[in-house]
């Protein structure tokens, strides 16, 4: 298992190739931490917030910043996609595939939603079933080939189009001294740099403000409750490592401080852990008021206030982190 499907599958493939690296380090070096509030897009039924960079970006940044060579493939023809996957796993090469999470039928029914941004690692095939490793499933899972085909070729937003990749080569050494400050600066820029108002810390504040308008966007109180309780799911359950990826990033900062022997980064890791605790409180609160249908303006304002406090805490954090990282 892993905290997050994209960083988890990437870490697993790298370890298989002989590179010892942790999931938080992959997440941090790929500048995965993010915040975005998406309210107006034809792709979404309802406003949502994102806590990590766009799917695929993590891998692209890792590829650009290190000398890890990825072999990436997309397919028009479903048969070709299956044949190529079979060939690779036949040669003992584990392959990461992008899929629609809904078709992962080994996952409990309540968890499965249509999301074309899930990554699994296919490691073998027995008869008509593929064997795979999924970050959100504690054992080796099995999936029928027809289901995997549907999942790999589901249409819709961010359609996978048979996307898969494996690792061709890894470098002997990663230059952490150079890459850690670079990746941290990138994250700081994402969060407090010049960004549109729905991105970064400004995005967190937008979320707090727009949340008050959610009742107007919902069909009824049950729908509103469902959407508010999804705040908990987005922050904790959908592969974040807890606290909306903040615990994962805190662990990255801790590991970075050990590599660079930098006590200030260690202090920042503790602060990030506390920020994550604040997000976890928000997720508990959202679940509670959603369950109780206690969703009047006062409660939503209270929730918005808690989110605004996170924005203030994160703004202060990244400002301080900027100073710390500029001294490295």
């Amino acid at each position: 298992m892993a905290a997050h499907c994209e960083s988890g599958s990437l870490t697993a493939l790298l370890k298989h190739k002989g590179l010892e690296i942790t999931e938080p380090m992959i997440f941090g070096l790929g500048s995965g931490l993010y915040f975005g509030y998406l309210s107006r897009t034809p792709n979404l039924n309802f406003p949502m917030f994102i806590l990590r960079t766009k799917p695929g970006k993590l891998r692209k940044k890792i590829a650009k910043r290190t000398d890890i060579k990825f072999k990436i493939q997309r397919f028009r023809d479903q048969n070709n996609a299956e044949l190529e996957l079979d060939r690779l796993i036949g040669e003992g090469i584990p392959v990461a595939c992008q899929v629609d999470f809904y078709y992962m039928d080994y996952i409990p029914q309540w968890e499965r939603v249509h999301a074309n941004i899930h990554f699994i690692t296919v490691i073998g095939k027995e008869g008509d079933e593929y064997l795979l490793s999924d970050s959100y499933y504690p054992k080796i899972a099995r999936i029928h080939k027809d289901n995997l085909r549907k999942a790999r070729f589901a249409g819709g937003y961010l359609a996978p189009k048979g996307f898969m990749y494996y690792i061709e080569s890894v470098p002997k050494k990663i230059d952490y001294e150079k890459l850690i400050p670079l990746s941290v600066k990138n994250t700081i820029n994402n969060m407090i740099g010049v960004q549109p108002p729905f991105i970064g810390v400004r995005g967190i504040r937008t979320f707090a403000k727009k949340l008050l308008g959610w009742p107007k966007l919902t069909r009824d109180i049950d729908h509103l409750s469902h959407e508010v309780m999804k705040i908990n799911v987005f922050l904790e359950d959908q592969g974040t490592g807890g606290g909306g990826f903040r615990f994962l990033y805190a662990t990255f900062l801790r590991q970075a401080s050990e590599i660079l022997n930098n006590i200030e980064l260690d202090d920042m890791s503790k602060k990030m852990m506390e920020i994550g605790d604040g997000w976890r409180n928000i997720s508990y609160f959202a679940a509670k008021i959603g369950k109780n249908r206690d969703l009047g303006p006062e409660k939503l304002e209270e929730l918005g206030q808690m989110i605004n406090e996170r924005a203030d805490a994160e703004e202060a954090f990244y400002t301080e982190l900027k100073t710390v990282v500029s001294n490295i």
Partner: protein
Amino acid sequence: MKEKDAYIDYEPQQLIMYVEKEDGTFGPIQTGSYITKNYLDDFWEKMMKLRNSLLEKLKRNEITPIYFYKLIHDFNNVELSRRTGIPVFRVKRHQNVKSFRKIKLSDLYKYAYAFDIPVSNLFQAIVVEDNENKAETDALNQPIIVKQKRTENPFVVITKIESNKK
């Protein structure tokens, strides 16, 4: 998050959480899902209410099966259009009760594929009385299991109703 505060005893849905461990180090633990453990019943209740209210509308011919499944799968018109390859204006038209009568079989097939159901389910609702109190709970725990097996004919499905021996 301190390690001792992070553990949730819930085996059906496990996840990885990064925590501050007893010795002060940061690292992963495997734990259960807080929201599923505490609020899964509420989720099923909401889903059941939504499904039943839509089914009533469907029975009164106020909505079309396309609209029914669109809401169940939480798609919007653009997403449904992308998943079926049917233009948005026709997706909208197919949610109109009068226009639905003129729908092509080939379009129904595309919808059924996107909704991951047999085409025949666009014209029927299979309700099992014994399951009614658990109508939307985990299929594995329902007393009666309805299995639908596809055939080589894309428009024919075999529906088997079995008691759950589990």
